[in-house]
């Protein structure tokens, strides 16, 4: 005889069920990335200590996604807001979550300075190579030749530069105690491990942690599921190499 049990969706424990389905579009990478982040938070058992900050742009739709204290801030300003929280409450685990516009355009000065100061926070940038919420404009990460609403004839690196390489930049300006990696929604097990290591780096008080996650925007890319995966796994990884760029050794005695 089997005991009848009500089957529950397997969401990370720290996700807030009452606000599901979450507000992201069908097939949006944010869902997967935040699932990996949720799993990392669960496995480290830190849900009660996390302060989650999100930007404007689609990332703002995660403002009530977790059963964690959360702050939705201004465009590009999530990094300084979370820095402010961490400086005032070093016992909190601060996560600043944003898109590539918030991280590499309007908030780039904050990213550079927080990294240089080795702030003990985790910054996560979801990179979907364009601006989602405002309707698909060119972003700092837009691939050469890619058409967007503000590069309707294709991005021309001659006039608008090449895609920003965020983790490479952060790795160059942080000390050895920083954790820097680039993961992808196409490998959530690896991405979860990266988030765990990044959070552990903050918990250990080592220094700045930074993870870029390759993400998808089927809505603005106008891709079906097959094309979405192809773009994330084949096109984006030509420019954005997945892997760890900086992983500090564990402190003595750990």
């Amino acid at each position, binding site marked *: 005889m089997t005991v009848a049990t009500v089957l529950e969706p397997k969401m990370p424990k720290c996700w807030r069920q009452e606000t599901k389905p979450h*507000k992201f*579009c069908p097939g949006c990478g944010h869902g997967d990335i935040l699932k990996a982040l949720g799993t990392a938070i669960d496995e480290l058992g830190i849900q009660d200590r996390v302060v989650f900050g999100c930007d404007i742009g689609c990332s703002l*739709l995660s403002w009530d996604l977790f059963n964690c204290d959360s702050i939705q801030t201004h465009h590009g300003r999530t990094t300084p807001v979370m820095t402010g929280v961490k400086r005032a409450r070093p016992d909190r685990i601060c996560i600043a979550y944003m898109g590539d516009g918030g991280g590499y355009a309007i908030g780039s000065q904050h990213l550079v300075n927080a990294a240089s100061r080795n702030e003990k926070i985790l910054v996560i940038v979801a990179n979907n190579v364009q601006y989602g*919420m405002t309707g698909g404009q060119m972003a700092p990460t837009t691939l050469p030749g890619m058409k967007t609403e503000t590069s309707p004839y294709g991005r021309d690196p001659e006039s608008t530069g090449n895609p920003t390489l965020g983790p490479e930049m952060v790795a160059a300006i942080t000390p050895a105690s920083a954790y820097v990696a680039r993961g992808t929604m196409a490998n959530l097990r690896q991405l979860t491990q990266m988030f765990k290591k990044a959070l552990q780096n903050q918990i250990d008080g080592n220094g700045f942690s930074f993870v870029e996650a390759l993400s998808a925007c089927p809505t603005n890319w106008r891709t079906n599921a097959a094309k979405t995966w192809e773009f994330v796994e084949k096109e984006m990884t030509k420019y954005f190499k997945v892997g760890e760029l900086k992983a500090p050794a564990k402190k003595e005695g750990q």
Partner: protein
Amino acid sequence: MSKLVKIALAGEGGQGVQSVAEIITEAANEEGKEALYIPNFGVEQRGGVSIAFVQISEKEKVGSPKFEKADIVIALSDRAVRRCAQYVDGNTVFVYDTAIEGVEDDLPKGAKKVIGIPAIETAKNELHPRVFNIIIMGAVIRSTHVVSEDQAKKALEDRLGYKFEQDPKLRELNYRALERGMQLVESQL
């Protein structure tokens, strides 16, 4: 049509209410009328009901873009039925699709008239799901007379002509959808 007609068209994203609003107002503009169309947009729309606010006036410029009460409300999903109650008063004709389940108690009580039409069924069984919104367009122009049938067809031609060129059957299909939409409301007005 009377001097100014106010229409609220509401459905789920993907049902095509915004393109119907666009085609109708473009057609009215072509006829020399003053038309104004505003969608609800941005965050306002994400995960919510998609609403098109349309006003068409015989001659005078249209006033404020949104309005309190509509002359005609077309609601194409259960959420749209509930969301649109606020635009209904004693002068409103309320049109909804009879395939929507579980809204019997939510249909507006004080409307001038409540009309159920089987547009979803008609699209699925007689025509093609793709022309569902053109059936709705037919229903709108027959119940409001904001544009003539000929002008509506011309507007369809302007917008979809390049597709019709490749497949003339599509033109037939769209025209039939328009006519069926008009018939669906005809008997109930």
